[in-house]
C-alpha cells in the first residue's frame, strides 16, 4: 500500500448534476468528504438520497460535474475512461448488494477476474485467487458455480474478488442487503477483520444498524452530507 501523506479520499465541493433533456437533477451538492487510509466509514442514507451516486463517484465509475475528487492525492477528474478503469482495477475493490458474480465462471475464476485485466499470468492468478479464497474460507468450493452456493458464500467470494488485487479501498454497497440476518452478521465480521488488517473500508447502507458497526458515519440526504459523531443515537 502506498503511504501517501494526505487522505486516501478527498472530495471538495463535489457536485453531480444529471441532465436529460430539459430535466435536470442535482444528485450531489457541495459534498466535502475526507477519508484517511485505514479508516472504516459508513455512508448512511435512504434510497434516492444520492448515496449510490456518491459511491459511483468514489468508486471511479462516474465523474463529478463540479468540485474536485482526489484519490490518493491524484485528481481523478482528468482521467480518461481507461485511466479510471485502471484505477478501479488496481486501487479499488467493489462489493455489491447483488454480489455480481459472473454466473458462467466458477468461484475461483470469479476471484481471478480482476487479475486478468492486470495481465497477470494464469498460474499466478490461480495462486493468488486460491490464497484469497482461503482467507474467506471457501477454498474447497473453488470449482463450484455461483448458483451452487448460498448468498453469504457468494458475498464472501465477492469480497475475495475485491481484495485479490490488494486495493487501497474496499467499497461495499449494501453488502448485507440481500442476506438473511445470520449471513449479514457474518459478512459484517469479515469486513471488520479486513479493516483490522489495515485496509480502508467504505460502507454504503440504508441500515443504521449496519452503519453503526463502522468507526465513523456520514449521512446523506437529498445529495447533502452531514457527519454524525459515533455514539449519537440515530433518529
Amino acid at each position, binding site marked *: 500500500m502506498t503511504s501517501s501523506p494526505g487522505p486516501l479520499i478527498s472530495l471538495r465541493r463535489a457536485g453531480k448534476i444529471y441532465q436529460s433533456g430539459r430535466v435536470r437533477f442535482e444528485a450531489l451538492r457541495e459534498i466535502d468528504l475526507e477519508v484517511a487510509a485505514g479508516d472504516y466509514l459508513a455512508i448512511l442514507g435512504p434510497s434516492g438520497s444520492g448515496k449510490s451516486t456518491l459511491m459511483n463517484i468514489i468508486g471511479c465509475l462516474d465523474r463529478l460535474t463540479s468540485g474536485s475528487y482526489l484519490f490518493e492525492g491524484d485528481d481523478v477528474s482528468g482521467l480518461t*475512461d481507461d485511466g479510471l478503469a485502471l484505477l478501479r482495477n488496481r486501487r479499488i475493490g*467493489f462489493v455489491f448488494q447483488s454480489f*455480481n458474480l459472473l454466473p458462467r465462471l466458477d468461484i475461483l475464476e470469479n476471484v481471478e*477476474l*480482476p487479475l486478468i*485485466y492486470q495481465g497477470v499470468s494464469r498460474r499466478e492468478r490461480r495462486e493468488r485467487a486460491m490464497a484469497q479464497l482461503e482467507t474467506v474460507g471457501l477454498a474447497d468450493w473453488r470449482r463450484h458455480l455461483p448458483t451452487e452456493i448460498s448468498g453469504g458464500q457468494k458475498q464472501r467470494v465477492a469480497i475475495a474478488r475485491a481484495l485479490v488485487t490488494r486495493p487501497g479501498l474496499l467499497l461495499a454497497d449494501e453488502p448485507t442487503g440481500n442476506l438473511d440476518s445470520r449471513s449479514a452478521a457474518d459478512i459484517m465480521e469479515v469486513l471488520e477483520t479486513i479493516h483490522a488488517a489495515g485496509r480502508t473500508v467504505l460502507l454504503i447502507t440504508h441500515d443504521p444498524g449496519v452503519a453503526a458497526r463502522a468507526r465513523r458515519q456520514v449521512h446523506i440526504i437529498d445529495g447533502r452530507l452531514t457527519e454524525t459523531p459515533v455514539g449519537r443515537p440515530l433518529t
Partner: protein
Amino acid sequence: MIRDAVRMAWRSLRANRIRSLLTMLGIIVGIAAVIAVVSIGEGGKDAILGQFREIGANQFLLEVTDRRSGDTLVTPEDLELLRSGLDGLEAVSALQQRLGLTRKARPDGRESTEGYAIVAAIDPWYTDILALETIAGRQFTDSDHHQGTPVILVSESTAEALYGTTDAVGRDLDLTLSNYRLQARVVGVVRTLSGSLQSEYGQMADAGMMERVPGELFIPLATLERLEGRPDGYVMLMAASTGPENTGEVAERLTAFLRRRHPEATGNSYRVVVIADILEQVDTVIGYITAFIAVVAGISLVVGGIGVMNIMLVSVTERTREIGIRRAVGARTRDILAQILAEAMVLTFIGGVLGVVLGLVFTYIVTRIVGFSMVFDPRVIVLAVLFSSAVGLFFGLYPARRAARLDPIEALRHE
C-alpha cells in the same frame, strides 16, 4: 491477454452450443462451397487439360470452313510446297475423317453387330505431330502409305468394344465408308493422346440409331484414296511448328501462303485452331465458372457474417450486466472490445475450419464419382480460414463497439 480473450470466447460459445453452431452454419456452408468449387474446378481443369498438355503446345489445326468453293482451297500440291519449306513449320499432315459403319462377325460366326465409328485416314506425317503409341502389333509402314493396303489401327477401347479384347491384331473388320466397302485387317492396337481432339475436328453428330463405337480407328490416307479416288483438296490439316513460341506466327504464315495460292478464298475460308489457345480458353472458361460460384459462395459468407453480427448483438444485450461487472473490476473499453471480437472471430474461425473439412469431404466424394483427381491446394485452405476469421472481425466490430461503449453504471443496473 489475447489468449485469455480467446479462452473466454471459447467458453461462452460452448455455453450456447446450439446457438453457436447455428450461427456458424452460414460460414460453414460458404467456406465449404468455396473449397469444393475451387478444388473440383482445379481437378476438372486437370482432367480436361491434362491430355492436351501432353500433346504439346506447338500444334495447330487448319480447317477449310468455306465449302462453297469446293474442297479445293487446300490442294495436294499446296501440301507438297509447304513440306518443301515453310519457315518454322515442323510437319503438316492432311487428315480425312469419315463416319464408318462397322460390321464384324461374332465368334459364333452367325450374327454380326453394327455400329458407327469415326475413322481417321492419316498420311505418313500424322505421327510426326501426334504420337501413336503401339500397344500391340505394328504401325503403318511406308508401303501401307504408298500402296493403300487395307490395314487398320484401333485404339484400345475400340478393340475392346469390337472384339472384347485388346489383343485384336490380325482380326478382320468389315467397314463401310460412305459408299465404299473396305475389308480391313487390324495390324496394331495403339494408344492415342488425341481423344479429346476428336470432338474438336470431328464434329460429327451422333447418328442416334446405332451404337457408337468408342475410341478411334485409323486407316492410311492412301487406302481411303484408293476407294474414293485422289481428292482435289483437303478440308483439314494438322500441323506442328518447331516450337511453342512461334506456333501462332507459323499458323499465320501458313494461312497467308494458302491465301496467296488461292485468291478466291474469302476472309473466313480458313479457320486456324491453335491447341495452346484452346487450353487457354478452357482455362479461362473454368476460371470464370469458378469465380462466379466463388462469388455466390462469398455472398453466402456475407450473409453468414450478418448472422454472426446479429447473434453477437443479442449476446451483448444478454450480457450487459456481465460487461458492467467486468468494467467495474477494471476492464478497459478495449478489453471488452477484444472479448466480443474474439468471440465473433473464434466463431467464424471454427466455422471456417468446419467448412474446410466439409468442403474437402464433398470434393473427395465428387471427384471419386466424376473420376477427377483430387487437387488439394493448402493455400486455398489457409486463405479460406483466414477469410472466415476476417468475416468475424468485420461483422464482430459493430457489436464489439456497442459493448465497449456501454456505460458501466447503466450496465451494472441492467437486469
